[in-house]
């Protein structure tokens, strides 16, 4: 191992050891915890600790991915014992300090992380949603300070690079190929193969790109890595530079992630200070540097050639290929594009070795994958599981009881707008492996998993997704910008009650036409539409044939009405909240003026028992507003 690395490591170990000497209160500062009030908690803790003159350190860390428990404060004592406390908002800080420093606060505690058991308290390792995880890429998240490179190095950081630098380019690429690593963006393209393309190019300089555009709605996998363990991504990129001969990188980060931008910029600076970026990295002769490059809000700029166009002073329109990035990328030079998580995986492979890396996963996909889970579940979270983990088990852990009792899970939307949608009975049978998704006409995608229960309407979801695709189409191909527009028109019309029996033929035709698109944005855009027509036919039929939306979501097929039997105590409040003065009283009798009502649900929010939503089955006839519209 390189001497320069040994020296770095020794110094960082010392820094980390010093943090262990006394009690540390770890406060996660990341986008989810901030939304839950963690910044206020941090401030309150810092001032209370000062005021009380306590001999404890308050330390910023990243988050563990247990978003629904934030702010999730951890107290680690000098004897090594550690307890996690949930929902520690700033008003709970005094209580926490009163109860948790000498003892354990039973009231606020969530789980024991380290040390002896505490009666009545679970251990984190036994907590179902934790126990099922195979935390490798996320191992340091929530434990180290993301703004402190010493913490990273003391936890094994840059040892993977040190080992890679001892190997030839061919050896490193062989190891990456043997790990089966495929692009984690959802591209599933073998990473080793891609690197070999770039290594073989003679034209210099060569560039790397880290694709941190994470535009998939509902995906926040890359964000966690950048906010909570930024150095792991940088390390993977330096390893890639060594393996491919690239000398410079652009880190293309979406503007919508301000904290990730801040953390990545600081991480790059620190890596440079330690000689891990720049000239003669770890005294190995390797020279490589990078720049955090902030995007400006465009989904197709996540597509690699759109990204390249965006870097090259153009509108971010996906380019016509060939040439591929390995031949002509940034500034028309040889370039390799990988996702954030892909680079983190490389770091892990080099640090822990193939045997460890390949010890979990499926035949085709070894190792682990990070997923972000949202939608109709109790526990919005980010988890890391081995490839092949049963989706059903994961679902049960994120939605253990109440949500399920009230509602029935209807669908799973994995991998965002281009990947597809599946009904529950198929989805919950699948292992989390890209190969298992394909036979059902969908993709697993980059890690976003959105759970959908029966309060949602499939037509409405199609309106949302097709509109997103239409809005984000770059406009180069008529098939794509016109086709996505037609998709949203059709679903809007169906949602208004103007659906026709030949709409399915139109969907089929559109699906075929869209194949003639320049990039995957166009060619994959009909996936959700086609899978909906296949798997949720009955529900769409109901809209078309009966002008009925069973979930009572499609606004033109429902009506808000005052329930004449109910007591009207709350109705004055409903009238006051209504933004359009549609709730009216005449001769003691309350009603809703349908010509004014915009169906916003506010009256029902305040007077749930007095307001009813009715559809075609509750009262007939109900003339569908858009029935005459043509498409």
């Amino acid at each position, binding site marked *: 191992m390189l001497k320069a690395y040994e020296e770095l490591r020794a110094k960082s170990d010392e820094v980390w050891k010093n943090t262990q000497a006394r009690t540390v209160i770890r406060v996660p500062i990341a986008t989810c915890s901030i939304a839950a009030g963690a910044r206020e908690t941090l401030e309150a803790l810092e001032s209370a600790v000062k005021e009380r003159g306590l001999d404890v350190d308050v330390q910023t860390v990243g988050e563990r991915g247990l978003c629904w428990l934030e702010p999730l404060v951890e107290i680690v004592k000098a004897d090594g014992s550690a307890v996690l406390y949930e929902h520690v908002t700033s008003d709970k800080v005094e209580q926490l300090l009163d109860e948790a420093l000498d003892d354990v606060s039973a009231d606020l505690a969530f789980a024991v992380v380290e040390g002896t058991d505490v009666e009545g308290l679970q251990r984190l390792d036994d907590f179902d949603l934790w126990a099922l995880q195979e935390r490798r890429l996320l191992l340091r998240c929530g434990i180290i300070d993301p703004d402190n490179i010493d913490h990273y190095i003391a936890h094994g950081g840059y040892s993977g690079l040190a080992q890679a630098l001892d190997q030839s380019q061919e050896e490193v690429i062989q190891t990456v190929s043997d790990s089966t690593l495929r692009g984690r963006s959802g591209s599933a393209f073998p990473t080793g193969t891609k690197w070999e393309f770039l290594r073989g190019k003679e034209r210099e300089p060569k560039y790397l790109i880290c694709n941190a555009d994470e535009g998939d709605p509902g995906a926040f996998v890359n964000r966690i890595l950048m906010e909570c363990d930024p150095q792991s991504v940088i390390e993977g990129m330096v390893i890639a530079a060594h393996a491919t001969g690239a000398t410079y990188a652009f880190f293309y980060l979406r503007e919508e992630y301000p904290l990730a931008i801040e953390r990545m910029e600081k991480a790059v600076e620190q890596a440079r200070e330690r000689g891990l970026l720049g000239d003669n990295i770890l005294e190995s002769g390797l020279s490589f540097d990078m720049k955090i490059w902030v995007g400006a809000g465009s989904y197709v700029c996540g597509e690699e050639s759109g990204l390249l166009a*965006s870097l090259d*002073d153009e509108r971010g329109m996906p380019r016509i290929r060939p040439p591929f990035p390995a031949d002509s990328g940034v500034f028309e030079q040889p370039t390799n594009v990988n996702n954030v998580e892909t680079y983190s995986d490389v770091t892990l492979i080099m640090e822990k070795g193939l045997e460890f890396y390949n010890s979990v996963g499926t035949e085709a996909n070894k190792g682990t994958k990070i997923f972000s889970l*949202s939608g109709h579940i109790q526990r919005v979270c980010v988890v890391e599981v081995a490839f092949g983990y049963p989706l059903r088990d994961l679902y049960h852990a994120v939605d253990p009881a109440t949500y399920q009792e009230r509602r029935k899970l209807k669908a799973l939307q994995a991998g965002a707008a281009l990947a597809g949608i599946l009904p529950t009975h198929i989805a919950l049978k699948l292992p989390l492996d890209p190969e298992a998704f394909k036979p059902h006409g969908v993709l697993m995608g980059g890690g976003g998993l959105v759970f959908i229960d029966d309060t949602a309407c499939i037509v409405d979801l199609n309106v949302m997704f097709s509109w997103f695709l239409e809005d984000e189409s770059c406009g180069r191909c008529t098939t794509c910008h016109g086709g996505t527009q037609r998709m949203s028109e059709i679903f809007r019309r169906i949602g208004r009650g103007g659906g026709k029996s030949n709409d399915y033929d139109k969907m089929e035709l559109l699906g075929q036409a869209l194949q003639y698109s320049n990039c995957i944005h166009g060619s994959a855009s009909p996936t959700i539409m086609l899978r909906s027509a296949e798997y949720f036919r009955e529900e769409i039929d109901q809209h078309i044939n009966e002008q009925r939306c069973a979930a009572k979501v499609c606004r033109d097929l429902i009506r808000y009405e005052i329930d004449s039997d109910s007591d009207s105590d709350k109705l004055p409040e409903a009238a006051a909240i209504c933004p359009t003065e549609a709730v009216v009283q005449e001769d003691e009798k309350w009603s809703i003026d349908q010509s004014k009502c*915009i169906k916003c649900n506010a009256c029902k929010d305040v007077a749930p028992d007095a307001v009813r939503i009715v559809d075609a089955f509750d009262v007939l006839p109900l003339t569908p507003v858009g029935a005459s519209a043509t498409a």
Partner: protein
Amino acid sequence: MLDTEATLEIAELVAEFKPGNADLIPALHKVQHRYGYVPREAMGVVAKQLRLGEAQVYGAVTFYSELRVIPPPQTRIDWCSGPACRLKGGENVRLALESVLEIGMEENTAGDKVGLHLAQCNGTCDFAPQIWVDGKVVGPLTAADTITLARELKEKN
């Protein structure tokens, strides 16, 4: 283009950027950071600095949803258009906002007091449906909560 005080100021602001150096978006970010939006005059200055056509710069500015061509409002409301928010009533929130403020997405109320912006999911879906008021997450919101909040904002200004 004639140099005015404004264009000279912008020229100084973007002097560090070079042609063919992946600098267009960074330059526009810097302008927006300073003025809150990309003023018409700035497009010409940036074009000159990077040796691009003004139409190319204009094309880029209007291509990206986070670059603005109108002045920023005093209070900015980002409405999340993501899936988790939609599933939990995000459309009700949008209708409530638009009807109380009497504007649509990407518009400001009179005097640029309050503005609405269509935003993408940032992964704080635990708070769905939500909006961000000047960058701070507010949620989960019912339509009624939203109306109360929007009315307060409207009155305050």
